[in-house]
């Protein structure tokens, strides 16, 4: 990425910032967080429509490749949510995930990715309201950061697939 393309892409985005809405990819585990999101829906708890949900079997299934791939493809924020520790459908998948996640977010922070782009939470199937609140918190955080420019792959100024 040359400085010049970086600047032009940033100015392009600033001109659009007035009606800019962040895209947030949410990796939700099938057994707790996805059901929590479902409950938020059926209970009609309002939450920002910025998240795009990817259903995964377990938070332990979310690999660093998937997170980085989302960033590369232009996600402004990422939310990974699983069962509370001790509640995992697969007994300990989320506990392995809990070991891996801080290492990845610290590494990304270390190379200058803004803290707050990558978020982790625990949401159980009965926590519809909490899920809505977490999405609100994360969306506000990502909105405050503005559009993602770092590690976003662009070809001739346009988002690469």
């Amino acid at each position, binding site marked *: 990425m040359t400085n010049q393309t970086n600047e032009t892409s940033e100015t392009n985005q600033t001109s659009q910032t007035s009606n800019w809405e962040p895209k947030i990819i949410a990796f939700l585990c099938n057994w707790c967080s996805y059901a929590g999101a479902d409950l938020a829906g059926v209970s009609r708890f309002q939450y920002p429509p910025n998240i795009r949900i990817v259903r995964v079997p377990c938070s332990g299934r979310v690999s660093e490749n998937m997170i*980085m*791939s989302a960033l590369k493809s232009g996600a402004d924020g990422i939310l990974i949510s699983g069962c509370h520790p001790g509640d995992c459908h697969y007994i300990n998948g989320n506990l392995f995930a*809990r070991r891996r996640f801080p290492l990845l977010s610290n590494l990304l922070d270390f190379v200058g990715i803004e803290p707050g782009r990558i978020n982790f939470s625990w949401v159980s199937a009965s926590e519809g309201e909490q899920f809505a*609140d977490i999405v609100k918190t994360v969306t506000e955080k990502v909105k405050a950061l503005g559009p993602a420019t770092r590690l976003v792959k662009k070809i001739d100024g346009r988002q690469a697939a």
Partner: protein
Amino acid sequence: MPTINEKLTEEIRAKAKALLAEGTVAAVIGYARGSLPMTVKPTVVRTADDCGKLVWNSFCVLNLANYLPEVLKSVEPPRGPRDPKPEGPLPKVAVLATGCWSRNIVVQTQEHQVDRDRVMVMGVASRGMVSRRKVEANFAGREILAVEELDHDLVVKGADFEEKINRWSMVRDNCHTCTHPDPVLVDVRIGEPASERKNPNPFQQVDDIEKKSNDERWAWFTSEFATCIRCYACRNACPLCYCPTCFVDDAKPQWVGKSLDAVDTGLFHLLRAYHCAGRCTDCGACESVCPMGINMRMLTKKLNKDVLDLYGMEAGMQPGSPLPLTTYATNDPQKFIVTEAGAVKEGE
């Protein structure tokens, strides 16, 4: 009066010869002379007569553990992919190992890539390996034709100059900060054991980068990795990278593009480093083989620091216990978790 390295070379040759002659091992992985000054080449010696090829000096920067799984396989009797394992013990392989390389053998054993019973570790205490790049930078613009090694100095010779420089000042950064120079596994001891080195902060270089602002760190990252040509030498030199298909070669999905785009190279380096989390022993092979002089070791060093801080583990130092990321504790720190109140949860 022979130098330390000459004595070690003699001892390595004698012990390798004995092991091969009595049939204890089928092969010895070591180093032979290189064709350029300050280089050595990794070599597999299979007969007692060839042991004279082996050398030991301060330029042994590659990690010999990298070759171990393949050499172990090569000495097995040939068999098809579905044939059963032959009965009886399989031939053994001896490998030279310093502190970090022996820790890599521990990791390979923990990951079931290497059968510990088939490995004969010839343990050498490391005195720190010399960075060829540092020496060349010291003689910028002048061609180095030969480098002779004394115990504490290097004698650098060119067409019209001969200078003596201090060896320790030319030692690689990772060897400077190393605290475990002595092998953790020793079956055959070469030379004298070394004691643990004291280092008030082995992670000083990482701390220096952490102190910078977010934007400065991003600027550091983009400029450091801008020259990467994606030759994958860092991956190939690494004893941790044994996957038959690396994530960079995956086509569907393609995690990382194959271009020289800054984002693709950045993602490659971040993911490569992350795959070494909790497994890297900071042997410095990746950095030593980089043709562009990229300090990619900073990323793995940062991960080593976090693994030590969060889980109190160092790769390869606890042979009996599982690797940090293949286990968990019920009270692992989880300060990073976002809660509904927007606050960050304290560790339980």
